[in-house]
C-alpha cells in the first residue's frame, strides 16, 4: 500500500503530467468541465469517471498482464487526475491528458510486472510486409481469387446481439501485437481522434495509420472467419 501511495504521488508531479504535451488544445467545453471540477461539482467528476473508466481499463490491459492490475492502475490514474487537476493548463484535451497519465503509469507497471513490451520504439516492428489480406486470396494479376462476400446479415447491430461473436472479436483484439492493439483500442473501441492517439502513445501520424491498418485488417479477417463459419 505504501508503495502504491508513493507511485500515485510520483504520477501527480507536474513533470509526469505531460507539461510538454502538444497537439489539440482543450476545447471550450473541456475548459468548462475543468472549471466545474475545480469548483468541486461532484457530478462533473462522476460523469468523467463514467465516460472514461471503461476505455482506460481497456488501454491499461494492453500494458499489464491481468485485469486486476489494470483496474489498480486505472484507480491510481484517477487519484493522479484528482491530484493534478488544479495544474491542468489546457494545452491538450482533458481526455488526452487523462489517457497520458494512464499510459505512463501502465507502462511503468507493465515493466515492473515483467511484461516487457517493445514500446520504447513504438514503431512498427512486425516486418515490412504484413498483407491486409493473405496473398492466397488473390490471383497473380492482383484481382480477387477468393473474394469476400457481402455480409448481408452480419450488421454491427446483429453481431452485437451475439455474445459469441463479440467474444470472438475481443479475443482477436487481445491477440494483436501490443502496438496495434493500443492503436485500434483507442481509435475504434474508445473513439479517440487520430491526433489524440498520436499524443497519448507518442507516435507519428503515419505510424499510427500503419498500425491501425494492420490491426483493422486482422480484425476484419477474424470477423470474416466467424461470419463464414456460421
Amino acid at each position, binding site marked *: 500500500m505504501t508503495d502504491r501511495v508513493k507511485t500515485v504521488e510520483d504520477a501527480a508531479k507536474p513533470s509526469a503530467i505531460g507539461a510538454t504535451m502538444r497537439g489539440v488544445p482543450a476545447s471550450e467545453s473541456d475548459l468548462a468541465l475543468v472549471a466545474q471540477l*475545480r*469548483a*468541486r461539482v*461532484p457530478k462533473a*467528476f*462522476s460523469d468523467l*469517471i*463514467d465516460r472514461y*473508466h*471503461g*476505455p482506460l*481499463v*481497456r488501454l491499461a490491459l494492453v500494458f499489464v498482464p491481468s485485469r486486476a492490475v489494470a483496474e489498480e492502475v486505472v*484507480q491510481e490514474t*484517477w*487519484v493522479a487526475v*484528482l491530484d493534478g487537476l*488544479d495544474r491542468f493548463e489546457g494545452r491538450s484535451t482533458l481526455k488526452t491528458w487523462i489517457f497520458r497519465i494512464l499510459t505512463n503509469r501502465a507502462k511503468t507497471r507493465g515493466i515492473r510486472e515483467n511484461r516487457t513490451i517493445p514500446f520504447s520504439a513504438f514503431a512498427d516492428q512486425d516486418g515490412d510486409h504484413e*498483407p*491486409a*489480406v493473405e*496473398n492466397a486470396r*488473390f490471383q497473380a*494479376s*492482383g*484481382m*480477387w481469387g477468393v*473474394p*469476400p*462476400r*457481402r*455480409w448481408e446479415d*452480419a*450488421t*454491427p447491430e446483429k*453481431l*452485437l446481439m451475439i455474445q459469441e461473436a*463479440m467474444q470472438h*472479436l*475481443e479475443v482477436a*483484439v487481445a491477440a494483436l501485437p501490443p502496438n496495434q492493439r493500443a492503436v*485500434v483500442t483507442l481509435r*475504434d*473501441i*474508445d*473513439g479517440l481522434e*487520430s491526433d489524440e492517439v498520436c499524443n497519448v502513445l507518442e507516435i507519428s501520424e503515419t505510424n499510427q*495509420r500503419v498500425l*491501425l*491498418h494492420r490491426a*483493422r*485488417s486482422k*480484425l*476484419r479477417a477474424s*470477423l*470474416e472467419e466467424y461470419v463464414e463459419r456460421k
Partner: protein
Amino acid sequence: MLTCQQLTELVTEYLEGRMSLWRRAQFQMHLGMCKHCRAYLHQMRTTIRTLGSLPQEQMSADIKAELLKRFRSMAPPERK
C-alpha cells in the same frame, strides 16, 4: 489502374481521408467497377462499427464512492 490487392492496402488511408485527390479518384473508380472490393470495404466498415460498440466496463460502485469522497474533500484551488 489499382488492383484489388492494392486497394485492400489503401483502405485505411481512404477511410482516414489521407489520400491525394488523384489517388482517391482511382480508388473510387475501382470501387465503382468491382463488387468484391465494395464488399471488402463494407466488411471493413462493419468491423470498425462493431468495435465501436464493444461493451465498456463501468467502475464498481464502492470504488467510485471512495473516489468521489476524496474529490469532495479536496480544497478548491486558490485563486490567482
